């Protein structure tokens, strides 16, 4: 399974009509049209899901698992629904009802994702903020942003907080607790995550910063929404809700920063805005900034590509639910224990996040310069319309593809027409 360039975002060829919509929105210019169909360049894709969202023909989708298959493989199964799920149903639905509906899909137990967000908040606020660290600290929770930083902002890798994501932390705590409580072997316990996020699907199979994920399967929230909805009316044995009024707000942009109680923070959503602000951070322009919360999706994970409900509506619902929850209060014992889990490496990113210089033209600078010169020369002959008809998102990308030898057959139609017209005139 550990394919180096595994991606959850895929193309359903028969649906793609070659319209170029996705070429334009891809923040890493990872899509090309070849033979009239969109192709994703695996090396460049960060799984942000922008192309899934924009595609008018629904030709882009995400691969995820079928939970029924996974349930069969384990003695005991735990579902972790993303907190985003809480915003997908009408306001009158209680969290307990939703958790029961998820459990009734066939799981033995449900764990709330706030198990993770609370532990993370506790460790950052009580431990990491007091340590010496490159500032601003950058959140590690959005895998699309981590991959973006690897590719475009390698200098900012040391700023990333070396703590796992809420889902991973929840999965780890859940497995350890259940194993202790029921005397089960960890490997007999299966954790399935219900995801609003394509990047997460990828990062669970191909993790960044850790060896192996504790999550054994990921299902798309979109795919199981209907079943959960149908289960809502079913038997609802009392489910314990553990979330508090701030930990539940993690999937909403700014939720992490506010939970941490940091004063000088920036919370930015939407990948193009994140890029702009990271540029400023990289240039040392944001003096005194302590924490940067950057997420790829508009509004936060509530805007994830695998959600059903509009992100504004779901944001509002989660806020309403938050009002009925108790405020965050953590005991000394809980804080110490969380820090210990971090120090012991259980919830920590233990592998280095490596830079990935895919923008580079060549490993040899002399050759790079030569290639760059060629690109400059080719660009002189191109119209600069960035129309996408050639299959590349911009004229510059087209020129680059030629020089990299990746595009031997494509032609610039605009230029060809112009030449044709000129010939006719002469």
């Amino acid at each position: 399974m550990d394919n180096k360039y595994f991606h959850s975002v895929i193309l359903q060829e028969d649906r793609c009509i070659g319209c170029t919509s996705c070429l334009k929105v891809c923040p890493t210019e990872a899509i090309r049209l070849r033979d009239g169909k969109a192709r994703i360049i695996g090396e460049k894709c960060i799984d942000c899901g922008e192309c899934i969202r924009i595609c008018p023909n629904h030709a882009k989708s995400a691969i995820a698992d079928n939970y029924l298959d996974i349930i069969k493989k384990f003695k005991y199964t735990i579902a972790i629904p993303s907190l985003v799920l809480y915003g997908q149903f009408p306001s009158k639905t209680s969290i307990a009802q939703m958790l029961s509906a998820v459990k009734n899909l066939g799981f033995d137990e449900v764990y709330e994702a706030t198990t993770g967000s609370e532990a993370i908040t506790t460790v950052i606020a009580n431990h990491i903020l007091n340590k010496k660290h490159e500032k601003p600290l950058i959140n590690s929770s959005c895998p699309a942003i981590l991959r973006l930083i690897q590719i475009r902002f390698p200098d900012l890798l040391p700023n990333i907080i070396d703590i796992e994501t809420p889902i991973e932390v929840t999965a780890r705590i859940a497995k350890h607790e259940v194993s202790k409580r029921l005397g089960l072997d960890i490997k007999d316990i299966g954790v399935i995550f219900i995801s609003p996020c394509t990047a997460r699907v990828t990062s669970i199979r191909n993790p960044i910063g850790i060896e192996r994920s504790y999550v054994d399967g990921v299902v798309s929230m979109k795919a199981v929404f209907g079943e959960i909805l149908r289960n809502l009316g079913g038997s609802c044995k009392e489910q314990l809700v553990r979330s508090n009024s701030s930990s539940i707000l993690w999937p909403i942009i700014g939720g992490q920063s506010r939970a941490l109680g940091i004063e000088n923070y920036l919370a930015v959503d939407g990948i193009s805005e994140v890029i702009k602000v990271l540029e400023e951070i990289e240039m040392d322009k944001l003096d005194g900034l302590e924490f940067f919360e950057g997420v790829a999706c508009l509004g936060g994970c509530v805007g994830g590509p695998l959600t059903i409900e509009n992100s504004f509506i779901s944001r509002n619902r989660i806020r309403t639910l938050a009002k009925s929850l108790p405020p965050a209060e953590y005991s000394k014992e809980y804080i110490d224990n969380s820090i210990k889990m971090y120090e012991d490496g259980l919830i920590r990113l233990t592998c280095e996040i490596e830079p990935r210089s895919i923008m580079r033209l060549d490993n040899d600078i002399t050759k790079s310069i030569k290639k760059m010169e060629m690109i400059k020369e080719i660009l002189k002959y191109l119209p600069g319309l960035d129309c996408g008809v050639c299959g590349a998102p911009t004229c510059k990308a087209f020129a680059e593809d030629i020089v990299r030898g990746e595009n031997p057959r494509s032609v610039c139609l605009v230029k060809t027409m112009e030449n044709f017209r000129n010939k006719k005139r002469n």
Partner: protein
Amino acid sequence: MEFMKYTFDVEKDDFVRAGEASSNIKRTLRELGIDSAIVRRIAIATYEAEMNIVIHSVGGQVELEIDPNSIKVTARDRGPGIPNIELAMQEGYSTASEKVREMGFGAGMGLPNMKKCTDRFTVESVYGEGTTITMEILLKAGD
């Protein structure tokens, strides 16, 4: 030897486009595969030079020259020039207006930072004619 040159125009008071030259230069260097710490140094120095043209001069150009051994940035403007270079080079010295300070510039750290970020740094200025700043970072063989 392989050699490349790019030129970017920088206009007086054009705060909307300000920073474009340094962003472009950053991207170019990254594509060339230059070490990211060096890219960052050049980008910061170029940004300072670019902003000085926008804020303090009547307009000019930023030029990037690259060969396998070094990266050179030249920021040239058409005036008015710096009357006292030694003074201008002092940390904290600035003639920026109140308005410019409100925008977050005018700490008087631009020129000292350019010097700090680069291996070779020179300012030439003729009052009434213009200023030319040249900055160079040397690339180790194999970079």
